[in-house]
């Protein structure tokens, strides 16, 4: 790889857009540099399920033509992006990481796909993921695992692990993930990225392949807080095609990221959640994660924030409630894979009936974790069990939201580690579903309450990235960005360089 193309792939999205808009680099050159990087490194990472070189170069050419014609360019025009394969793309195969959808070419674009294209952002391809976004390591993909650019023997988190690996490995400047229980924040944390789960309803879900409809939310990955905010503003906002989309203005996340970079948090009240890695609740948390978290809290104090301890007594039930609600909704959503309208069909020999063909197709097309969750959900929704499981989980969800309300009465934002451990080795948790679920321990409460939360790097433990989670009240996404930007600039200044500069793969 030439020095010039390395230089282009190591820039932030904001820098790339500035170079293109000033005519110092063409969008085609930027895109080609990233395609070259994918060609040289993705054999080892497997971040992408498919690369759309032709589509990317033609979108880049359109940006260059627009600039030459003197038309105004958006703030991310020409910037290459990695799109999670749960988001449908017209004319480009979309599988949601499942063999059952192998070969499916969607006839329409998701709303966020259209918004990304309209902004002149270049979609390089579709990224690997846990099948139907069910998992925390990307090992549940129907198409093989993705590896972490920090250490190829470790997972990149999940379910959006293809996007996190692509952005952390400089194969793309930006990434899109979806977060149902932590699937943006946890992969961001373990790959040293910034990842934000917007307020539920803040970003359109039209054209996202549904997993758990009351929890699913798409959001941005970036290498900096500002890049992440710029992508957030591009994809967010009301969409009449999604009935859960909130009809209110997008929170001013870009302005908040710029303001936060100034580093002054005087007067801000930061709540440390006792039940999420706070004092006395360190079970399952690695010491390196807890010490990185403590240092981040010290940084917040130095920046002028007032630290208060808050208790959210029902957060301890979040994991149980989540692993009832999400599978229940999944068992219903995944009923659409019926071997009739799209995807795989197995055993249609002219003799077998529809029910049997459907059952054989779903056996062949779904992986083990998807089958487990469909059956758990079927169980939890069965008459006789409904009240004790699904109904009770929904009540716990109310109590978790009330814990948040009480905590936000005394704090402007809440903080915790993003995930209890650094990236674990491939294979370490695949035989133990409960150990895999525990990776989402810290991220689940905000998922259940629908509140926004961001993960920003707090440093390294044993040479692997650790994330700080910042949670804010509904529609106060801008607070997450403000605090994250302040932490980022303070830690970058202390370190002398951005954390991602230490990624070993070149």
């Amino acid at each position, binding site marked *: 790889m030439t020095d010039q193309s390395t230089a282009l792939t190591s820039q932030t999205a904001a820098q790339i857009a500035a170079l293109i808009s000033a005519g110092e680099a063409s969008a085609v050159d930027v895109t080609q540099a990233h395609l070259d990087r994918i060609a040289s490194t993705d054999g080892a990472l497997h971040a992408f399920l498919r690369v759309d070189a032709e589509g990317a170069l033609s979108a880049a050419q359109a940006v260059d033509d627009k600039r030459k014609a003197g038309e105004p360019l958006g703030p991310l025009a020409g910037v290459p992006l990695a799109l999670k394969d749960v988001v449908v793309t017209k004319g480009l195969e979309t599988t949601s990481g499942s063999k059952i959808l192998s070969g499916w070419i*969607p*006839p*329409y674009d998701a709303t966020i796909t259209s918004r990304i294209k309209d902004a002149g952002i270049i979609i390089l391809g579709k990224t690997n993921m846990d099948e139907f976004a069910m998992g925390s390591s990307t090992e549940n993909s129907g198409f093989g695992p993705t590896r972490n650019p920090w250490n190829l023997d470790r997972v990149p988190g999940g379910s959006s692990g293809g996007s996190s690996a692509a952005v952390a490995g400089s194969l793309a400047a930006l990434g899109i993930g979806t977060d149902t229980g932590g699937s943006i924040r946890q992969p961001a944390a373990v790959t040293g990225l910034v990842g934000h789960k917007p307020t*539920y*309803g803040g970003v359109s879900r039209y054209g996202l392949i549904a997993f758990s409809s*009351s*929890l699913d939310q798409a959001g941005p990955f970036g290498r900096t807080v500002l890049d992440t905010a710029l992508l957030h503003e591009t994809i967010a906002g009301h969409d*009449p095609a999604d009935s*859960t989309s*909130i009809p209110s203005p997008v929170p001013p996340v870009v302005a908040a990221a710029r303001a936060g970079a100034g580093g002054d948090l005087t007067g801000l009240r930061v709540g440390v959640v006792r039940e999420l890695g706070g004092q006395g609740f360190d079970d399952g948390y690695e010491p390196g994660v807890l010490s990185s978290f403590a240092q981040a809290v010290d940084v917040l104090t130095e920046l002028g924030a007032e630290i208060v301890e808050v208790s959210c007594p*029902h957060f301890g*039930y979040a*994991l*149980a*409630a989540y*692993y*009832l609600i999400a599978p229940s909704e999944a*068992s219903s959503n995944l*009923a659409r894979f019926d*071997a*009739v*309208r*799209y*995807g*795989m*069909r197995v055993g*249609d020999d*002219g*003799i*077998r*009936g*529809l029910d*049997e*063909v459907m*059952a054989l197709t*779903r*056996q062949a097309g779904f992986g*083990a974790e998807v*089958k*487990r969750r469909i*059956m*758990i959900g*079927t*169980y939890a929704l*069965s008459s006789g069990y409904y009240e*004790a*499981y699904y109904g*009770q*989980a*929904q*009540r*716990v*969800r*109310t*109590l978790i939201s009330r814990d948040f309300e009480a905590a936000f009465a005394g704090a402007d934002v809440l903080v915790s580690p993003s995930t209890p451990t650094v990236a674990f080795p491939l294979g370490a948790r695949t035989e133990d579903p*409960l150990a895999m679920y525990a990776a989402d321990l810290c991220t689940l409460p905000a998922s*259940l*309450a*629908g509140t926004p939360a961001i993960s920003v790097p707090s440093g390294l433990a044993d040479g692997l990235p650790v994330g700080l989670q910042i949670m804010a009240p*509904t529609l106060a996404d801008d607070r997450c960005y403000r605090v994250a930007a302040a932490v980022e600039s303070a830690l970058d200044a202390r370190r002398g360089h951005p954390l991602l500069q230490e990624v070993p793969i070149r």
Partner: protein
Amino acid sequence: MTAISRDDVAHLAHLARLAVTDEELDLFAGQLEVILESVAHVADVAADDIPPTTHAVPLTNVTRPDRLGPSLPPEEVLAAAPAAEGGRFRVPRILDEPA
């Protein structure tokens, strides 16, 4: 204690239209039991007087203007189907007698 037998798994799999092998019955019986046991403690929370939350952001009766718009072309939709015939989805037989 939530005991899940092979028969329970077979019943759930049937309800969910999932074919399962004998080995899967054993594997899933053990795993589902462990998972259900670990989530059963949601019942420990005294919450009889607590209303359930179905959605984090309560929006009700969301409507949009009833306007004519283009639909997807039938040939594009059918192109994604595993089998199509005469402009329709072709399904395996749905009645009991073999064709």
